[in-house]
């Protein structure tokens, strides 16, 4: 039997629609890049260098967003760059989340020596300057997709661990935890069935935020030439190249930047939107 | 001659049809103590907040008048309204643990208002603060003024908040459930203190509470609220002798009395609740015609 109250369907928040829409579009672009990209992203043609986008005087048909100084199609390169960006976002984001949130949950709920060890590790970790740390890591591990993901996970797990630990501590003090104990639930089971659902909204928000951050980190590493290889198109690499020709060909810099911006924004809004829509506790 | 007159005050949840206050009218004479009684959600605290201009942002006043000392507060521009409220009104809050700033000493928390808003000299303000702390029976006021809130007990803090409320000789004090967070033995002392201070200073007091026992100890008149509607407006002795509204009668019957071994657990009958709810809805309909 349902009553009227639980039948009120919450509307999809606009930011959820917009952000999810953009991310779905990107996902489709990444998967279909070989079929929808108008040109080969690596094909150079020095006669067609620095062509402006299609609505600017002097453009060539077929190059919608123009070309860079080597005559490569900007749109095609953005589309192919999406593949790396999203792979990094999803893999690095989820792995960071799983490791960080688990440690945070254990520290915040079990307390005691577990908490002491994890908290000290977090403190020490956070004393390292993150950008230098990641550059150092890549230098040691060598460039490549795996290295980027490892670098992001190693640096950012503390973000999850800190926040989730604090949240788990708050939730752990609630009487529903005591009540689970009175009912005879074990500590570990309590952590998963009672605490986890209550920190899940926070985890969701952090996870999507982390995906956006992963994209930025990847772009920064590409920018300093420490990402995968210089040939494969990446947004960060394009931005780095575009910077050198900003006065002659602004579009080489601007379009990847806009894509990056919209994607990171969409990830953060996706998290908030999901929370608004699916958290059973109405605010 | 009433000092505070509220006429047809209505308030809504912003942008929604949910009504918080429904044409509330009441008067508090100079030096009178009026109780605002009701269960949670009755709107009793909202009236106090409307007077002091501290309503939550989600609630808006949709009509009516709050006439304080002859001036309708709701017609004043916001800046003037705040000054007026600051000069003439004060609040005794519910929770003494959160009402004092934990990172500041007690002294400045009492004197700041006098110095910053009422332009007293610091020396005068501190002298006044010491006098007031003595007046609320705090031993060693000097030491307390230099203390931080966490060094003092809940009862002590509530005394300080009372002293602070009376500091600028306000004409009206809103006491919002001032003893709900306290132990009964401390509650008794605080209630006696509030009554004593009120009588000495001749301040009008609006006493918000859910406890009819407390009302019978401090109030001279009371308004019973349900769903933002005033159901009954009585002199205190008349009310306890014979409540006018069926809901008031039920509420009084439901209030536990330890002196009465058997009949003290009478819930408010569903029929009374239904009838009262119907009355609230009827009031809405007649207001719309």
């Amino acid at each position, binding site marked *: 039997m349902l009553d009227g109250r639980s039948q009120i369907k919450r509307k999809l928040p606009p930011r959820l629609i917009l952000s999810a829409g953009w991310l779905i579009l990107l996902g489709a672009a990444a998967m279909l890049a070989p079929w929808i990209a108008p040109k080969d992203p690596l094909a150079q043609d020095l006669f067609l260098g620095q062509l402006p986008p299609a609505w600017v005087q002097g453009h060539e048909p077929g190059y919608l967003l123009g070309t860079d100084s080597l005559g490569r199609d900007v749109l095609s390169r953005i589309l192919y760059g999406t593949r790396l960006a999203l792979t990094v976002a999803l893999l690095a984001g989820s792995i960071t989340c799983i490791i960080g949130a688990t440690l945070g949950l254990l520290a915040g709920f079990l307390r005691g020596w577990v908490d002491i060890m994890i908290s000290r590790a977090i403190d020490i970790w956070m004393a390292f300057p993150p950008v230098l740390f990641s550059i150092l890591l890549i230098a040691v591990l060598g460039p490549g997709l795996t290295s980027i993901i490892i670098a992001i996970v190693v640096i950012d797990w503390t973000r999850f661990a800190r926040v989730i630990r604090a949240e788990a501590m708050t939730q752990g003090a609630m009487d529903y935890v005591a009540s689970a104990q*009175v*009912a005879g639930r074990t500590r570990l089971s309590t952590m998963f069935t009672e605490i986890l659902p*209550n920190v899940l909204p926070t985890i969701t928000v952090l996870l999507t935020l982390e995906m956006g951050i992963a994209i930025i980190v990847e772009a920064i590493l590409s920018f300093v030439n420490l990402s995968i290889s210089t040939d494969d198109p990446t947004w960060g690499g394009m931005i780095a190249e575009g910077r050198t020709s900003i006065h002659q060909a602004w579009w080489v810099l601007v379009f990847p930047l806009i894509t990056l911006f919209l994607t990171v924004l969409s990830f953060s809004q996706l998290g908030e939107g999901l929370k608004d829509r699916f958290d059973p506790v109405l605010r | 001659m009433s000092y505070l007159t509220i006429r047809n005050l209505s308030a809504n949840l912003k942008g929604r049809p949910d009504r918080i206050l429904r044409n509330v009218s009441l008067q508090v004479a100079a030096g009178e103590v009026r109780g605002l009684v009701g269960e949670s959600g009755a709107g009793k605290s909202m009236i106090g907040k409307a007077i002091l201009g501290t309503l939550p942002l989600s609630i808006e006043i949709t009509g009516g008048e709050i006439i304080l000392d002859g001036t309708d507060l709701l017609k004043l521009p916001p800046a003037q309204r705040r000054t007026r409220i600051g000069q003439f009104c004060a609040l005794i809050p519910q929770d003494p643990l959160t009402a004092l700033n934990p990172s500041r000493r007690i002294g400045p928390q009492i004197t700041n208002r006098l110095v910053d808003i009422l332009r007293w000299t610091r020396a005068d303000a501190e002298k006044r603060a010491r006098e007031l702390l003595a007046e609320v029976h705090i031993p060693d006021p000097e030491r307390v003024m230099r203390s931080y809130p966490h060094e003092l007990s809940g009862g002590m803090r509530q005394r300080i908040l009372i002293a602070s409320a009376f500091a600028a000789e306000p004409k009206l004090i809103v006491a919002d459930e001032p003893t709900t967070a306290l132990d009964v033995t*401390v509650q008794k002392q605080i*209630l006696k203190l509030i009554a004593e201070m009120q009588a000495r200073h001749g301040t009008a007091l609006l006493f918000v509470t859910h406890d009819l026992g407390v009302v*019978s100890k401090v109030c001279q008149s009371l308004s019973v609220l349900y769903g933002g509607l005033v159901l009954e407006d009585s002199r205190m002795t008349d009310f306890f002798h014979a409540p006018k509204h069926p809901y008031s009668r039920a509420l*009084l019957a439901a*209030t536990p009395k330890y002196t009465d071994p058997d009949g003290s657990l009478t*819930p408010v009958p569903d029929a009374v609740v239904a009838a009262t709810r119907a009355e609230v809805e009827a009031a809405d309909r007649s207001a719309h015609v």
Partner: protein
Amino acid sequence: MSESYAPNLYQIDNLRLSLADMTKKPLVGAAPRLEILKGLSFTIPKGEILGIVGGSGSGKSTLGRALVRLLEPSGGSIKFDGKDITHLPETDLHPLRRRFQMIFQDPMSSLNPRHRVGAIIAAPLSLHGLSNPRQRALEALDHVGLPRGFATRYPHELSGGQRQRIGIARAIALKPDFILADEIVSGLDVSSQAQVLNLLETLVKDLGLTLAFISHDLSVIRRLCTRILVLHRGEIVENAATPALFANPQASYTRDLLDAIPLPDPKQVWA
């Protein structure tokens, strides 16, 4: 019925409990111990409704939590139905947990906000391997006078009184021998207060429960409880049958407590 006929469900001897006082913890080293319970001895016979009364800091909630072993005492002993549970580890405690349950003060915090009511009531049942937890949960809702449709709701969709009924339903669903009710009506409006108390009274009678009812308010206890324990600063200052306590309070603290209750009657004048 005198105590010699009724076997004791609980026997508490010289119970002590201290906690680390973190506010006074020195920079290096252990925090000093704060003694909350200072050697309490009493019994709860089967079928009794015991009121535990005291102000804040009296240790009444700590005592309650020790009775259901949410806290481990630091001295003395607690025997439940003849078995010493004072320091029993959680695994050995598990089969006994079904037999003593607790209803919490704040039903908002004691009901997991992200679980549905049905799941909240059914969870302890499945933990103890009882058959048909869903069905039993619905029956528990019947017992506390709530419609079965509430099973699919979330706690925040209910009123305070309804939430507290869910707390009661969860406790009685296990068919325990003993229930600890910790200030269960202090957050409720008087109208729902009376309803919840009446419900509890009926259930205790119908199910043959033994109940300990913690409250700061003597006035809600009078009708419900058969015996009252008055606690002050971690010590028992009075332990008396309800009528005797109200007719002739022995401890001066009990008298202060009674005097301080504001009766809804203008004729009561405070000295």
